[in-house]
C-alpha cells in the first residue's frame, strides 16, 4: 500500500512536470513575451515601453537554459509554479497568489455544502426510486429527473432569485458575507439552485447503479435467507453500488476548490469560478498559466484519491 501510494505520487509528479513543460512551450515559446506585452499594453506602444513592461514582469530573460543557464525563463517558470509563487497578473499587475487565496474561501463555502447536500438528497432519493423500480413511483421519478435535467440552470437561477428572493423575500437575491451568522442566508439560494440543477442527472446515475446491483445473485441469496427489502437495499446493494458512485464523487472533490462559474457570477460570490474565464478574456497569460497548472494538480490528485478510495469500499481491490 505505502509503496503503491509512493509510486502513484511519483508518476503524478512526472505528469505535472510534463504539464509544466507543455505550458511553457505554449505560453513562452509559441506566444513569446513580446506578444504578451502587446496584448497587455496595446498594439501601438513604443518598443521601449514593451521592454520596460517585460522587465517588470521578468519576461526579459532568455527562454532556454542553453542560452543562459543561470538566468532563463524555463527554470524560472518551474521554480515559481512548484513553489506556488505565481507572481503578478499580466492584466492588472495584481498578485495572483493572493487572488487565489482570497477566492478559495468563498468558493469552498459554496461547493462543499453543495456536494454534501447533493449527495444527501440524491442518494436516498435514488435508493427510493430503485426500491420501487418498475412501478409508477419509479417511472414518475425518472420522468421528474429528466425534466429537472432538461431545464437550464439559468432558469433555476432566475426563477429562484425572482420567486424566493424578490416575491417571497426569504433570502437575499445575491451577495456574500463571510460572517458565519450571515453566510447561510447568502448561500441558501445558490445551494438550492445547485442541488436542484444537479439532482436529475445524479439520481438517474445512482438509480442505474442501484438497480444494476439489485439484480445480482447475492441479492437473491439475501432474500432467501429472510432479509427484508429495505435491509437488502441498505446493507447489500448500497455497499456494492458505492463503487461506481465513489469514482464520480472523489474525482469531483478536488474541483470544489475551483468553484462554480455560473452560481458565483449570478449570486455575487467572490470565488474562483470566474478566474479562468476572466483571465482568458483579459489576455491575462500569467493567471491562465497558473490556473491550468492548478487544475492539473487537482486532477492528478483526484485520480490518485479515487484509486485509493476503491480499496476502502471494495475488498477485492489490492494495491500493488
Amino acid at each position, binding site marked *: 500500500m505505502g509503496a503503491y501510494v509512493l509510486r502513484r505520487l511519483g508518476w503524478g509528479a512526472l505528469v505535472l512536470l510534463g504539464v509544466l513543460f507543455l505550458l511553457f512551450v505554449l505560453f513562452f515559446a509559441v506566444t513569446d513575451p513580446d506578444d504578451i506585452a502587446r496584448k497587455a499594453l496595446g498594439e501601438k506602444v513604443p518598443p521601449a515601453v514593451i521592454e520596460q513592461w517585460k522587465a517588470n514582469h521578468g519576461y526579459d530573460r532568455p527562454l532556454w537554459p542553453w542560452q543562459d543557464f543561470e538566468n532563463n525563463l524555463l527554470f524560472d517558470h518551474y521554480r515559481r509554479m512548484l513553489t506556488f509563487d505565481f507572481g503578478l497578473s499580466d492584466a492588472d499587475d495584481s498578485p495572483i497568489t493572493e487572488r487565489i487565496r482570497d477566492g478559495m474561501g468563498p468558493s469552498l463555502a459554496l461547493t462543499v455544502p453543495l456536494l454534501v447536500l447533493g449527495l444527501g438528497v440524491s442518494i436516498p432519493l435514488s435508493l427510493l426510486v430503485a426500491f420501487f423500480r418498475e412501478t409508477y413511483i419509479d417511472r414518475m421519478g425518472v420522468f421528474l429527473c429528466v425534466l429537472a435535467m432538461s431545464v437550464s440552470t439559468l432558469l433555476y437561477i432566475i426563477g429562484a432569485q425572482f420567486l424566493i428572493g424578490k416575491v417571497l423575500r426569504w433570502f437575499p437575491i445575491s451577495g456574500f458575507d463571510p460572517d458565519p451568522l450571515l453566510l447561510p442566508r447568502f448561500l441558501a439560494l445558490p445551494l438550492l439552485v445547485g442541488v436542484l440543477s444537479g439532482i436529475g442527472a445524479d439520481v438517474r446515475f445512482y438509480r442505474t447503479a442501484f438497480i444494476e446491483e439489485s439484480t445480482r445473485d447475492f441479492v437473491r441469496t439475501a432474500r*432467501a435467507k*429472510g432479509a427484508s427489502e429495505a435491509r437488502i437495499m441498505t*446493507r*447489500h446493494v448500497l455497499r*456494492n453500488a458505492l463503487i461506481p458512485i465513489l469514482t464520480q464523487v472523489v474525482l469531483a472533490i478536488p474541483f470544489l476548490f475551483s468553484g462554480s462559474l455560473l452560481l458565483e457570477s449570478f449570486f455575487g460570490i467572490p470565488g474562483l469560478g470566474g478566474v479562468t474565464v476572466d483571465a482568458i478574456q483579459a489576455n491575462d497569460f500569467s493567471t491562465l498559466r497558473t490556473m491550468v497548472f492548478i487544475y492539473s494538480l487537482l486532477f492528478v490528485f483526484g485520480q490518485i484519491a479515487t484509486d485509493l478510495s476503491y480499496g476502502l469500499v471494495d475488498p*477485492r481491490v489490492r494495491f500493488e
Partner: protein
Amino acid sequence: MSPLLEIRNLRTAFPGARSGFGPREPVHVVDDVSFSLDRGEVLALVGESGSGKSVTALSLLRLVPKPGRVTAGEVRLDGRDLMTLSVGEMRRIRGKRIAMIFQEPMTALNPVLRVGDQVVEAIQLHELVSRAEARARTRALFAEVGIPDPDERLDAYPHQLSGGLKQRVMIAMALAMRPELLIADEPTTALDVTMQAQILRLLRDLQRERRMAILLITHDLGIVNELADRIAVMYAGRLVELAPRAELFANPLHPYTRGLLAAIPALAEPGTRLHEIPGVVPSAGRWPKGCRFTPRCSERFEPCEAQDPAETTRPNGRRVYCHAVAEGRR
C-alpha cells in the same frame, strides 16, 4: 402423517412477447405442478434447461424474479399455504424453515462482505442473539460443513475462497437456522468433478444427521442416484413422471424419462452409440398443444396432439402423465 410440504396445481407465469398492439400474453413456465415432500425425504426435480424446475423452486419461496409471478396453486408447509402469508410472515419462513442454496457459489455471496458476517446475518435475521454468539455458531457451522481453518475463513471475503469453499459457506448459511427443508438448485453444476462428489457427500451426510428434507434440483441424473428417495421429472413446465428412485430407474414409464435414462453414459451398453432424444425443448410460449413432448415422442398417437395427458396413478404414489400409459399401451 401429513407431508412437510405439499404443492398443489402450482402455476407461475412470465409476460410473453407482445403480439401486435395487444396485451402481453402470460406464459406459464410452471404449469399445474403438484408434488409433496415428507420430512427427511430427498426429492429430486429433474429436467433439461428451461423445463421450469428452478422457477418451481423459486416459486415455493415466493422469490420468482419480477415480472414473473405465481398465478395459481397452493404451497402448504405443515398445512399452511405460503402463498397467502404476508410479506413479513413469508420472510420469517425463508432461511429459517426453508433454506436455499444456488447453482453459482461464485456470485451468490456478496463480494464486499466477509463470508462469516453473511452467515452471522442469516442467524441474526431470525434470532435475537449477540454478534459474538452468532459468530461462534457460524464457526461451528463452518467446521460442520468441512471448511478448513474456520477461524480464519470467517473473516475472508468471497474472492479469497475457492468455488468449493464458497458453496460450503452457502451450505453453512442455509443450515444456520436448522431448516426443515433445504432447496438445492443445481448445487454442484458450477464445480469440478471431485468437488461435486465432495459436496454431494456433504449434503447426504447433513441430510441424514439432521433429518432434513431436500428438494434437489438438477439436470444430472447421475447425482440423483446418490441422494434422492423419489424423482420428479419435468418437461416444458409440466411434471411428466414422479416415482421412487429405484422404480424409476428400473422401469421408466414416460417416453421422456426413458429417453433421459438412456442418455446417461454410465448406464449405457459399452461400445454402443449413446442415445439422444431427437429435437430440442421448445422454448417457453411455443409449447405444442396437448402433450408437450409429442413432437419428440417416438410413441405418439392420435390423442397426444389434441389433449393434455391424463394422470395415471399407481398405488405407491407413482404418477405418470402420458396417453400411452393411461391407455395401457405400456
